[in-house]
């Protein structure tokens, strides 16, 4: 996984709350068996609308998505993260994320930074008044900078460490393979098995 320390790129204001993963990538695009090539599927239903933010030239090359509260609700599809990454997003900022989406993002190196809704509103205003304005997401300093705004960003310590080191979870867990074996030896025999 690529390390994430800080990133600067064009901010994209997405003034919707409750952006569920069906909106991020509709189910018809989930049929592929690969991990890449989902960029065209991102926000597919909304991309047909000329006024949609990603269809405006100043935002097309955006890499920091600034979204309303409860981003990533609904289906567990990790394709939502792949689609955002394939499009070119490195970070999503919101005042509240759905749990599964946040977990999926952390595993794929997409930063989900929590900001206060007040700071999100301030950044939206800047991005809408000056389309193409860049946003810096600084994971090391745990802050977001945009024009003269400096907003504290909350990311839990462990996720921050993993992202900054670019570590993959399975590799980390394999270091405790003996503990897993010990646990298995103590499992009650009445627990079910799928194979007979």
């Amino acid at each position, binding site marked *: 996984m690529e390390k994430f320390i800080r990133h600067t790129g064009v901010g994209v204001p997405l003034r919707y709350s409750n952006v*569920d993963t069906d909106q991020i990538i509709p189910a018809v695009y989930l049929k592929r068996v690969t991990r890449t090539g989902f960029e065209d599927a991102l926000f597919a239903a909304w991309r047909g609308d000329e006024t949609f933010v990603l269809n405006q030239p100043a935002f097309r090359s955006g890499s920091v998505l600034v979204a309303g509260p409860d981003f990533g609700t609904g289906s567990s599809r*990790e394709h939502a993260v792949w689609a955002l990454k394939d499009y070119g997003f490195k970070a999503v900022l919101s005042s509240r994320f759905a749990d599964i989406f946040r977990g999926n993002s952390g*595993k794929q190196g997409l930063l989900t930074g929590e900001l206060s809704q007040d700071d999100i509103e301030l950044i939206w205003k800047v991005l809408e008044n000056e389309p193409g304005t860049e946003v810096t997401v600084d994971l090391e300093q745990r802050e977001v900078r945009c024009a003269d705004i400096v907003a504290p960003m909350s990311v839990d310590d462990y996720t921050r460490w993993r992202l900054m080191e670019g570590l993959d979870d399975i590799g980390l867990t*394999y270091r405790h393979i003996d*503990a*897993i074996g010990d646990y298995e030896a103590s*499992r009650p025999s*009445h627990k*079910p098995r*799928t194979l007979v």
Partner: protein
Amino acid sequence: MGKTLAEKVWDAHVVRQAEGEPDLLYIDLHLVHEVTSPQAFEGLRLAGRKVRRPDLTLATEDHNTPTVDIDKPIADITSRTQIETLRRNCEEFGIRLHPLGDAEQGIVHVVGPQLGLTQPGLTVVCGDSHTSTHGAFGALAFGIGTSEVEHVLATQTLPLRPFKTMAINVEGQLKPGSTAKDIILAVIAKIGTGGGQGYVLEYRGEAIRSLSMESRMTICNMSIEAGARAGMIAPDETTFAYIEGRPHAPQGKEWDAAVEYWKTLRTDDDAEFDAEVTIDASELEPFVTWGTNPGQGLPLSASVPDPESFADEGARYAAERALQYMDLKPGTPLRDIAVDTVFIGSCTNGRIEDLRAAAAVVKGRRKADNVRVLVVPGSHRVRMQAEEEGLDTVFKEFGAEWRHAGCSMCLGMNPDQLAPGERSASTSNRNFEGRQGKGGRTHLVSPLVAAATSVRGTLSSPADLESAAN
């Protein structure tokens, strides 16, 4: 201080705990389907890793599968590729699979319980957010992403941070005509689609205790629609009776040992929840959604709300957008909303009890002329059981289409979709924009409301049919 049910199950599965790191949690049962697994298997293959515990893993085909002509090759090439990929992966990694046409095929969250694999006190995961369904048995069950699927396949564990706990006290008893679906829609409307984020919900109280396992599954199923990854109900005699005798239920001495353990799986009297919510089941009417998220719901007797009536600016804006998408006007009585399609099925309401409830309403009637009615059993076994009971004949004589098992129109990955602008009353779990087909409009309802709606052609409850007959 005592522990909550969720904390007891969590603590019993901790493999490793370290300061500043997530707990490493052991997973007892991993359910797999074709949509969220191909990239996980590919990851294993690329890293030269094996599946650690094929004997704790089970796969079924559900999201993509057609519900007609299941003996013919799947017409959609990409769907077929995904199904074939799952079959190849299960073969290669030694995982038991119930493919299309098999007696045990069906929606993953219907299959686990029906085989007796879902049991109290287990940790259950699946690459599907409605894994919360299995919490109805007192299991800690939650949806995971594809990277986590790969992690569980490789290690049978997951690194996780403890959840907070929330008690949902459902007091009183449901009135006739109100169901488990109305309880959970009312809970979501009350706490919001983000209200449960970071929590495990434990449903408690008199109303919950009197519910069947099927109804408990309906409630736990939609915990995710309240933002919670998991919902749980403490196991009791209803739970034990449901499991006993199923193919994977413990037997003999193992059964006794299991039940003894299961009886300890209840929240201690002196345990404290991080949050508590109470609703009165005796006040609940049938609930329907009017908007594009599951929190936008109201009793059937209400009218489409005026966005101006929302104090919160975000909620007002969301309501405006929702009404525009749903093509609804404020003040329209919900009962006047006409639908094109009624969908009865899904992991929320595709079990035998749901089909029986719907069949009892439509028996001896004819569907409204301009409404298409799809009945899709949650599993092949549910379909067979319904046919034994003659429910298929009831539905067919009513004018409904009697289909094969799968996720079907809940998410429209197979050909069962709404056309743009079409409106449905659906017993499924999500009314998101385009969920049931691009441009489709969804009203979430209980099986009773779905059935009555298919008779009248507008959103209705069974009571409306009786008053019309008088």
